[in-house]
C-alpha cells in the first residue's frame, strides 16, 4: 500500500463532489475526448440527463424502480464479530443485497429510464465481472429494450455464471478477443459499436469513466448509496458521521456514489484498488475511452494491461473525479493484492455469514490491514460499501481454496 497524496482535512474547496466545471472537468481531468462521430451523441445524453435530473417526475420514477424492482434502500449492517476482532466499528452498506447482486443496478436503471426518454430502443454495455452486464440485461428486459453486452473472452470464462444470466435475460453477449480480453478491451469494442449505432442505441457505461457527461451522470445515479448511508449513519452512529468511508475502485462508481454522500463531512475517504489495476494510485495522466484521467502506461505511452483476480477491478484507469479527489487530497487511494482480497472474502464469510464479490473484498482487505497496522486507530468507525455479492466468484474461489 502506498499513501499517494497527503492526508488532508478539512474538505478542500472543489472537493465536495458537485457538478463538474465547464466542459465536464474535474480539476484538470474529465472532458469529452470522443471521436467526432460520438460528440453529438454525448451532447444529446448530456442534455437529456440535465433535463431529466432536474425533473421531480424523472427522479420519482427512478426512485420507484429502485424501491420496487431493485429492493432499495439497502441495509446498513454492523459487522459485529469482525469489528470486535479488528478493534474498530465496521458498518457495511449492503449493495450486495440489491436485485442482481451489486450496485451496478442503481446506475443502469437511471440510464435505462433515460434511454427510454430519449427514444432509444437498445442498450449497449461493456462488462468485466458481468455485474454491469447482468444489470443492463435486467433493466432492458424490465423496460422492453434490447441489450447488447461486450465482454472480454477471458472474463467470459471466469464469470460464466453471469454470462448465462445475461443470455437468460435475453441480452446478446458479444465476446471480445482483442488485447487482454478483459474490461478495457470490452469498453473499446462497445465504443466502436456505438459509433455505428448512435441513432437507436444508448451506450450505458458501467462506471464513472468515459466522455462527459458519463463520469458525472453515473456518479449521480450512484449517489443513492452515499445518501442512504449518510442517513443510516446519522441514525446509527453516536458521531453521526463515520471516521472513515471505504470502497473498492475499478472505474470507481460504487466509491464515487458512496463518497458523494460524505464529501462535505470530515469523514476520510479511502478508495481501494487492486494491486494490478491501480489507476489512481499508480497511473499517469492520459486520455482513454473518452476522458482525461490517470492510466497505467508503459514508457512509450501504451496503456498496459491490468491484472486482478477481480474482473471488475481489472481496468488500467480510474474515473476522472477520483483523479481529482486524489490531487486535492480529499480521498486517498490504496492497493491490496489478490491474496489479501481472497483472505478478506473468506474472513467475511466466516465471521459475518456474507460471501462478498472479490471486488468488494478488496475494500475489506484494506480495512483488515489498516486496523492491524495502526492506519485505522482503534475504535474508529468505518463505513464500507459492500458493492456486490460473491456468487459470481465461486468458481474462481473454488480453484484457490
Amino acid at each position, binding site marked *: 500500500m502506498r499513501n499517494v497524496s497527503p492526508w488532508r482535512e478539512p474538505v478542500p474547496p472543489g472537493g465536495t463532489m458537485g457538478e463538474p466545471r465547464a466542459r465536464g472537468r474535474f480539476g484538470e481531468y474529465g472532458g469529452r475526448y470522443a471521436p467526432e462521430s460520438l460528440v453529438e451523441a454525448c451532447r444529446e445524453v448530456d442534455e437529456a440527463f440535465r433535463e431529466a435530473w432536474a425533473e421531480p417526475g424523472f427522479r420519482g420514477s427512478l426512485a420507484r424502480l429502485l424501491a420496487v424492482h431493485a429492493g432499495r434502500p439497502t441495509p446498513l449492517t454492523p459487522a459485529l464479530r469482525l469489528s470486535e476482532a479488528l478493534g474498530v466499528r465496521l458498518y457495511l452498506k449492503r449493495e450486495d443485497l440489491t436485485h442482481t447482486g451489486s450496485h451496478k443496478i442503481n446506475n443502469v436503471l437511471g440510464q435505462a429510464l433515460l434511454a427510454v426518454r430519449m427514444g432509444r430502443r437498445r442498450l449497449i454495455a461493456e462488462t468485466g465481472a458481468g455485474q454491469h452486464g447482468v444489470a443492463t440485461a435486467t433493466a432492458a428486459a424490465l423496460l422492453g429494450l434490447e441489450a447488447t453486452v461486450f465482454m472480454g473472452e477471458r472474463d467470459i470464462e471466469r464469470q460464466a455464471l453471469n454470462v448465462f444470466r445475461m443470455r437468460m435475460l435475453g441480452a446478446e453477449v458479444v465476446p471480445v478477443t482483442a488485447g487482454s480480453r478483459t474490461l478495457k478491451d470490452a469498453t473499446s469494442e462497445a465504443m466502436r459499436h456505438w459509433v455505428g449505432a448512435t441513432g437507436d442505441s444508448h451506450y450505458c457505461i458501467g462506471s464513472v469513466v468515459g466522455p462527459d457527461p458519463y463520469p458525472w451522470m453515473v456518479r449521480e445515479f450512484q449517489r443513492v448509496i452515499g445518501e442512504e448511508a449518510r442517513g443510516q449513519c446519522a441514525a446509527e452512529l453516536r458521531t453521526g458521521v463515520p471516521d472513515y468511508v471505504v470502497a473498492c475502485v475499478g472505474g470507481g462508481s460504487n466509491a464515487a456514489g458512496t463518497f458523494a454522500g460524505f464529501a462535505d463531512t470530515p469523514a476520510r475517504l479511502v478508495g481501494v484498488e487492486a494491486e494490478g489495476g491501480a489507476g489512481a494510485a499508480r497511473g499517469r*495522466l*492520459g486520455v482513454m475511452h473518452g476522458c482525461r484521467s490517470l492510466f497505467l502506461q508503459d514508457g512509450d505511452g501504451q496503456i498496459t494491461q491490468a491484472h486482478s483476480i477481480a474482473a471488475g477491478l481489472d481496468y488500467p484507469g480510474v474515473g476522472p473525479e477520483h483523479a481529482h479527489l486524489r490531487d486535492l487530497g480529499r480521498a486517498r487511494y490504496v492497493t491490496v493484492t489478490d491474496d489479501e482480497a481472497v483472505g478478506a472474502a473468506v474472513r467475511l464469510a466466516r465471521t459475518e455469514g456474507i460471501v462478498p464479490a472479490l471486488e468488494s473484498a478488496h475494500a475489506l482487505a484494506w480495512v483488515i490491514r489498516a486496523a492491524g497496522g495502526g492506519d485505522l486507530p482503534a475504535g474508529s468507525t468505518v463505513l464500507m460499501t459492500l458493492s456486490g455479492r460473491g456468487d459470481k466468484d465461486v468458481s474462481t474461489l473454488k480453484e484457490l481454496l
Partner: protein
Amino acid sequence: MTNSALGPALHPAPAAGAGAVERRLRARRDTGRGLLMPYVTGGITPGWTDYLRAFAAAGADAIEVGLPFSDPTLDGVTIQQAGDTALARGASTRRILADLSGMPALGVPLVASTYYNLVLHEGPEAFCAALRRAGVGGLIVPDLPVHEADELEGAAAAAGIELSLLASPATPQPRLAEISRRSRGFVYAVSLMGTTGERTALAASAAELTERIRRVTDRPVLLGFGISTPDQAREARRHADGVVVGAAVMRRVLDGAGPDDLRAFLTTLRQALDQECDRPR
C-alpha cells in the same frame, strides 16, 4: 490557382500562412487532380519505410503514417491488427520517427496520425517538435475533437505542424464551420458513422457531409473511412478533393503484400482519380 473555371468565390487564394501540407494539397487540387493519401502503420514490418517510397511512386499526394496505440477505439479490426503487429515488433513513436528521420526526402508531405494519449505522454510541445524534426508536416488525432483541441493546436502551430481535424456525418453545421476554420492542412471528412475498415460501397453520408463542408470552407477536403476500391475512389472524388485509403492498404500488408504490390494497387486508385478529374464535380 491556375484553374479559374469555378471562379475566385469558391477557390480564393490560400489564406496567408497556410502550411506546407495545405499549400501542396491546394496547388494540386487546383490543377484538377484528385488527391490520394494512403495510410501505413509505422513499424509494421522491418523495412516499412519502403512502403512510403512505393506510395510516392504510385502518385500519392500525401502519406498518412499511423503511430500505433494500444487502444485504438476508432479503428476496425484491420488497423487494430496492424497496430498490434507493429507494437509486438517493438514499434514506438520514437522508433518510427527515427526511421522517418533516416529516410531521404520523399517529396511527399507526411501526416502522422495517432491517439491523444501518445501526444499527452510526450507533452504536446515535445511531441510536435519531434514530428517536425522527423520531417512530418501534419497530424491527425481521431480522439481529439475540436472542443478539446486548444492545447494541441497551439503546440502544433508553434512547431509548424498542421493539425487536421475530423468532421463526421453527425456533426451539426455550426460545429462543422468551426472544425473547417480551425483545421489545418485539410479537413478530414469521415465518410460514415463507423470505424475504419473496408466497405463494399461508399456510404451515402459521404456526399452529404462533403457538400456541407464545402459550404463553409475552401480548404481541401479528404474523404476517409471505408474507401477500398478504384470505383469507390472515383465516386468519392465526385464529392471531395480526394481520398484517404487505410484499411484496404493495411489488409494487403497484413496478408504479406510488399511495396511493389501496394504500388500496383495504389496505381489503380491513382488512375481512377485521374479519370474522374475531367468530370464536373
